[in-house]
């Protein structure tokens, strides 16, 4: 259930964590999580999907992005490029045959692998939402902040957004990033039924969505 993988970082190799079902089977699915808070909100749904895939004979791996969850790396040193390199390294280490990227994970997944992308998000939308959260919480605290000015500062000095200390390269990368989808099947939320869990104010399980996603993954990787 708990696996580790060697990941390149600014200070050399570091060990990173992955939640895994690995029984050495032929089909091995790498799951690239959503970015920022969306990763927490969708995690339970994805882990339940992994359990169902395990029962259906498919191995799956959900690695941490460096700087997130259990990672010892510094979040502020991360960039989309670093995350993409890390996910490519994780795919190689686990011998992934297929990939499932979720939301912002579509900006950093190893797109040479066949597989699926669930509701890909644009970097610009993710950044806009984080900036908006910062402006709203500043206003609650009685301070006036401006998205455009924050973004300008963030591009050169980095920026704290919703508790995440984003480096300048992450901010700059998010601004223009779009998913590079090369033949992977795009799964829309409507196929899972119910609302997207990344929208939820609080993380939650959604067994019906996990079951629907597992069925879609199985149908796709069998073909």
């Amino acid at each position, binding site marked *: 259930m708990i696996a580790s993988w060697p990941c390149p970082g600014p200070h050399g190799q570091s060990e990173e964590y992955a939640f895994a079902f690995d029984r050495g089977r032929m089909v091995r699915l790498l799951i690239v999580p959503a970015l920022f*808070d969306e990763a927490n909100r969708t995690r339970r749904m994805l882990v339940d999907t992994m359990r169902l895939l395990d029962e259906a004979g498919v191995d799956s791996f959900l690695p941490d992005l460096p700087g997130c969850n259990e990672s010892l790396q510094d979040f502020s040193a991360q960039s989309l490029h670093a995350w993409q390199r890390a996910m490519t390294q994780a795919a190689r280490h686990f011998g992934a045959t297929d990939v499932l990227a979720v939301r912002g994970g579509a900006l950093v997944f190893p797109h040479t692998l066949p597989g699926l992308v669930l509701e890909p998000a644009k970097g610009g*939308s993710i950044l*806009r*939402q*984080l900036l*908006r*959260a*910062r*402006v*709203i*919480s500043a*206003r*609650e605290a009685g301070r006036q902040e*401006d*998205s455009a000015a924050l973004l300008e500062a963030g591009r050169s000095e980095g920026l704290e957004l*919703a508790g995440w200390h984003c480096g300048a390269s992450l901010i700059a990368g998010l601004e223009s990033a779009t998913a590079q989808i090369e033949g992977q099947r795009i799964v829309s939320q409507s196929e899972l039924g*119910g*609302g*997207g869990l*990344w*929208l*939820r*104010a*609080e993380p*939650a399980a959604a067994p019906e969505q996990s079951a629907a996603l597992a069925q879609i993954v199985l149908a796709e990787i069998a073909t």
Partner: protein
Amino acid sequence: MSDTESDTDSTLRAILSDVLGLSTDRVAAFDASTGLFGDLPELDSMAVAGLLTEIEDRLDVVIEDDEVDGELLESYGNLLAFLEGKVAEKA
């Protein structure tokens, strides 16, 4: 205009149902005075940002930073009236 207004109303209820994880029945019972930000502890600044971004996507409107204040999010009626105005401007 009543069609547009009811479309905006039902879209907003659907988004709140997704964000708050409430059943459609619970959200259907919201009226103009139902409190939002402040009354619903799960609506923190990150959730509000997600809510507004989703509203922009689904209603195809743009909400400016300076339009977002405590009053806008105080009640369901205030938020709906603001969005109906946005949708009408667009038409």
